[in-house]
């Protein structure tokens, strides 16, 4: 909301600077986001009077002027000008030596739209010039700021303008614009009067109401009747008939006010509607009364397929969600959004039917969004207009009709009101208000503050009775009053206490949350850094990952209104994001890396789309570059199994995005809970990667029931563990896993079987391989004495027997 300082001063005697006022507003809940000085670019420009003119000896269009800029700046300044409209006796802005004006050179403005031009004394074709005479453009103003400002040439000021005066004061640039952030609960402050009421309350000065007075004349015109068929969407409709409307130009004061708000003057009637919107926050509409068929206004829901062409010549096809204003036959306005082309006021308009109504904010918003049509009115209605202001808005408009003398206000007034206009009464306990705040605000302060805010408070013992102002639809209960009081009393009165009355509670993380943190730290200690990716990705990621059309991962929750296609699907697995991280890092020259992410995936339920999808926490791991291989990834997953006491088994995986020979599924109790492996080389090629990428993903939700990081101490064995190395000759087709299985289960004392070498060729026959394992034999608590070499020989004999019997393996 933009409020000019000068306009606020119409309603409150403000005896402080703009900066001081901004601080006051800030303290009571109105943050001034920007406070800008209108004349910021203009300095040392004063009113000068051209005393004499001599032609420039070396130019056919320049003239040498002697300018009187007053006692302070010089009675006889010599200034050269090329402006054709200069004349002796002209009063015009004079930029002195060292002054600044608005840049008007289009070439400079293209590079910097906020450019400022510096004026220095100098010679123009050999003749000294001590400044520059200015046009309106060089002051950055148009005709609405000062009549004639748009003339091509010097700005011709009024004859009675005092010389030497700062030009900003003359043309209305000596003003501040407050750009105020208005919270959603205060739509009443989306206008000058609303802000002024707050200003009055916070600086403790009286608020001066705008003039709402007007005289009605009896009309002979045929009655225009108003019917509201949808009172839920239009709780109040005020209409008024104005005759003998005049065209012409609005007075300078009004044009300037509109200009300060960035609105061009059009005609008195249009200017009045815009002015009332800015000043009162009431959107107005003016119909050409002669265009209203059957002399009727009907407010109703549109019929399906009904059409309207709005003032900006766009056609819309409507349905029953849209509220329309109709005459006896057809829609003449899209309620609260824009008038129809068929009934707008024209140069020839003689009689006007004014509308000041309340339209339901949600309906205006819905229609505006659905049709893609909006206006200053619709954005105002979307924030909420109160029924109380409808009447005052109309009264103010009619007053202005009179003041501008641009029409005759008649006695034809219509007011269809379903809203209750009686001010709401409320009682509250002062003790409760103080209890919520935690301090005791003195009673006289409470009364003073609420009086300033127009709540007409009466205090009877602990009972506070107030009358809620008609424009304060947001006040709902005693906490609202508490807020009104404290924002005026000052938050600096709130002193810190530490839950003096509350009970002690136990806090902290749940076991599951603790385990997640433990998992993250476990990965961290293995060199993985934590990544955070967006929860959404692109359908293209599915194709990149070569997922078949029927892959479960493709069944993703879709965002109806995504920012872009790239961010339109909720993740069903995390691998694409991690691949993205690897690719980004490799492209940035981060040749080697390890990352993980823990985040939710989202699985749509097969039932209704409106059901909340399942959120499953996943862990994704990524390793790229360096000397890393498949087993670095496997090692990380094995560590998880160890620390969280989960038994994983591994089988060859078939995942579209993993190398079929270098990937594995992770199983728990025979059920797949994840997979890992090398990125499919074809995908790697597509991405142009020169480093290998390994991806791994685990469904933590599937593991959470069994993950257990509790530590249980086991007594140490009395005797040390002993190691034996075995080199075995096995068929090429046998896997390490198969052999390990036999090694671990042939003797109960084997606690570890670790492969340390694989060898082919030499004395190893064709089709066979030599695999060397280190076996660890650990005595248990029942073991009576340390293992002797003979005992170990017996163990090994048994193991070798099993290996031969089960897998045909020989000792090398």
């Amino acid at each position, binding site marked *: 909301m933009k409020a000019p300082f000068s306009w606020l001063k119409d309603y409150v005697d403000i005896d402080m600077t703009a900066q001081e006022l901004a601080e006051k507003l800030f303290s009571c809940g109105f943050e001034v986001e920007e406070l800008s000085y209108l004349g910021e670019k203009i300095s040392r420009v004063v009113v000068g009077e051209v005393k004499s003119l001599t032609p420039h000896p070396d130019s056919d269009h320049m003239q040498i002027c002697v300018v009187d800029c007053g006692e302070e700046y010089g009675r006889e300044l010599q200034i050269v000008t090329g402006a054709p409209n200069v004349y002796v006796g002209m009063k015009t802005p004079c930029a002195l030596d060292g002054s600044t004006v608005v840049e008007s050179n289009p070439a400079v403005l293209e590079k910097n739209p906020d450019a400022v031009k510096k004026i220095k004394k100098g010679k123009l074709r050999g003749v000294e010039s001590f400044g520059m005479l200015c046009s309106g453009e060089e002051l950055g103003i148009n005709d609405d700021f000062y009549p004639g400002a748009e003339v091509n040439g010097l700005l011709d000021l009024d004859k009675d303008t005092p010389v030497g005066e700062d030009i900003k004061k003359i043309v209305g640039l000596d003003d501040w614009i407050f750009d105020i952030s208005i919270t959603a609960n205060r739509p009443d402050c989306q206008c000058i009067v609303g802000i002024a009421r707050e200003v009055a309350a916070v600086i403790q000065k009286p608020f001066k109401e705008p003039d709402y007075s007007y005289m009605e004349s009896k009309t002979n015109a045929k009655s225009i009747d108003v019917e509201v068929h949808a009172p839920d969407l239009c709780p109040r409709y005020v209409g008024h008939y104005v005759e003998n409307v005049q065209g012409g130009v609005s007075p300078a004061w009004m044009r300037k006010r509109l200009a300060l708000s960035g609105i061009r003057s059009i005609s008195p009637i249009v200017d009045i509607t815009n002015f009332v919107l800015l000043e009162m926050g009431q959107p107005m509409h003016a119909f050409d009364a002669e265009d209203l068929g059957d002399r009727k206004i009907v407010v109703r829901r549109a019929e399906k397929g009904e059409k309207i062409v709005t003032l900006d010549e766009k056609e819309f096809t409507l349905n029953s969600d849209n509220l329309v204003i109709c005459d006896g036959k057809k829609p003449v306005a899209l309620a609260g959004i824009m008038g129809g082309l068929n009934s707008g006021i024209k140069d020839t308009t003689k009689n006007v039917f004014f509308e000041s109504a309340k339209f339901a904010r949600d309906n205006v918003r819905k229609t505006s969004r659905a049709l893609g049509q909006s206006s200053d009115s619709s954005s105002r209605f979307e924030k909420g207009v109160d029924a109380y202001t409808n009447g005052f808005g109309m009264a103010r408009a009619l007053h202005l009709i009179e003041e501008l003398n641009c029409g005759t206000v008649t006695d034809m007034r219509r007011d269809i009101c379903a809203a209750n206009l009686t001010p709401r009464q409320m009682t509250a306990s002062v003790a409760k208000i103080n209890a919520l705040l935690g301090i005791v605000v003195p009673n006289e302060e409470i009364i003073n503050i609420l009086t300033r805010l127009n709540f007409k408070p009466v205090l009877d013992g602990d009972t506070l009775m107030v009358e809620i102002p008609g424009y304060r639809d947001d006040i709902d209960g005693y906490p609202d009053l508490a807020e009104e009081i404290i924002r005026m009393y000052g938050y600096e009165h709130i002193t810190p206490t530490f839950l003096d009355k509350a009970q002690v509670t136990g806090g902290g993380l749940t076991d599951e949350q603790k385990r997640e943190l433990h998992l993250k730290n476990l990965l961290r200690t293995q*060199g993985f850094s934590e990544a955070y990716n967006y929860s959404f990705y692109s359908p293209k990621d599915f194709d990149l990952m070569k997922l078949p059309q029927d892959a479960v991962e493709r069944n993703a929750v879709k965002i109806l209104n995504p920012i872009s296609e790239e961010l339109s699907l909720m993740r069903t697995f995390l691998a694409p994001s991690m691949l993205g991280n690897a690719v980004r890092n490799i492209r940035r020259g981060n040749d080697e890396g390890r990352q993980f992410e823990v985040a939710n995936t989202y699985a749509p339920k097969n039932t209704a789309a409106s059901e909340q999808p399942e959120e499953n926490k996943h862990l994704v791991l990524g390793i790229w570059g360096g000397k890393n291989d498949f087993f670095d990834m496997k090692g990380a997953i094995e560590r998880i199994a160890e620390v969280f006491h989960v038994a994983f088994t591994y089988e060859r995986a078939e995942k579209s995005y993993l190398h079929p020979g270098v990937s594995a599924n992770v199983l728990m109790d025979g059920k797949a809970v994840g997979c890992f492996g090398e990125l499919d080389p074809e995908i790697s090629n597509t991405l142009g990667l020169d480093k290998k990428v390994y991806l791994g993903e685990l469904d933590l939700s599937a593991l959470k029931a069994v993950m257990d990081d509790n530590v249980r101490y086991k007594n140490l064995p009395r005797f040390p563990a002993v190691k034996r190395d075995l080199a075995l000759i096995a068929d090429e087709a046998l896997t390490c896993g198969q052999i390990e299985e036999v090694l671990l289960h042939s003797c109960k004392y084997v606690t570890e079987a670790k492969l340390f070498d694989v060898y082919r060729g030499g004395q190893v026959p064709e089709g066979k391989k030599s695999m060397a394992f280190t076996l660890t034999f650990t005595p248990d608590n029942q073991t009576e004495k340390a293992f002797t070499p003979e005992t170990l020989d017996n163990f090994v004999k048994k193991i070798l027997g099993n290996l031969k019997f089960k897998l045909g393996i020989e000792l090398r």
Partner: protein
Amino acid sequence: MKEKIEALRTEIEAAMEQMQTGRALYELKVRFQTALKGIMSGMKDLAKEDRPAFGKIVNEFKQGMEEQFEARALVVRKMEMEEKYAKERIDITMPGKAYKAGALHPITLVKNELIDIFAGMGFKVFEGPEIETDYYNFTALNTPKDHPARDMQDTFYLAENLLLRTQTSAGQIRVMEKETPPIKILSPGRVFRSDDDATHSPMFHQMEGLVVDKGITLCDLQGMLAEFAKKMFTASTKVRLRPSYFPFTEPSVEVDLSCSECGGKGCRLCKGTGWIEVLGAGMVNRRVLENCNVDPDEYTGFAFGMGIERIAMLKYGINNIKTLFENDTRFLEQFEN
């Protein structure tokens, strides 16, 4: 005999001077002991009465030599060690070796720190769903469909009634529905808003705090946030409340902390104001309590919500929110701790 002893003394003493290693010295000692044994074996040829005197001489000689051997051994050992030290001397300016661990993401670090601070004050951690119904995200939080406050947030919708939560406040309702006061919860997590520009990310993280009990006041909120500010930033960090609006709190406040960069004097970070907007808070709106079947006449409460990224950016001096989601290892590894 005496001559023999003196000759041996001269020989061994001279040899001993030359010995440079413990091994050589040991061998010399063995040689000396063998020679001495030879001398002592000649004792049997002496007259009986001369033997004690001779024995005494030999013993003194033996003792004296052994002392010399010991002294020389000390010298040799020192020499040997010095040689070893010299040989093993390294260039200590060469780079150290370390096993490099990874780093937790700054969002996790800040989240953990916040949890630490508030868990100590009795807050439990609750994580609600990221895909929420319209009811939990808006309606129950006193933001019905036609409410203009919905415009404050650009919501991603998945279905008419289903959305990506725009605020962790949604978790408040889920907790209050299940539990009875006293309630103290902290709800961290991902939130989503359809906003993607230089200073906004469509996904970010919030941490919501909620206290509901008898006699909770605005002063309690101020006190708790003051404690948070001191622990999260510095002991001298000050808290300022100013009026604001959220549909689910009344009164609502915007909470500023004195600028961590300049201590409140005014700098570029705080745009010269000395204050930094850090979080929104307020007293829980009566309607929100009613929606969760908590009697608003018996209980009051406060809630606060802060952006984790915002705190992380302030704390670590990160100037672009997008950096947090690029996952560049050079960025992430800076947070190893």
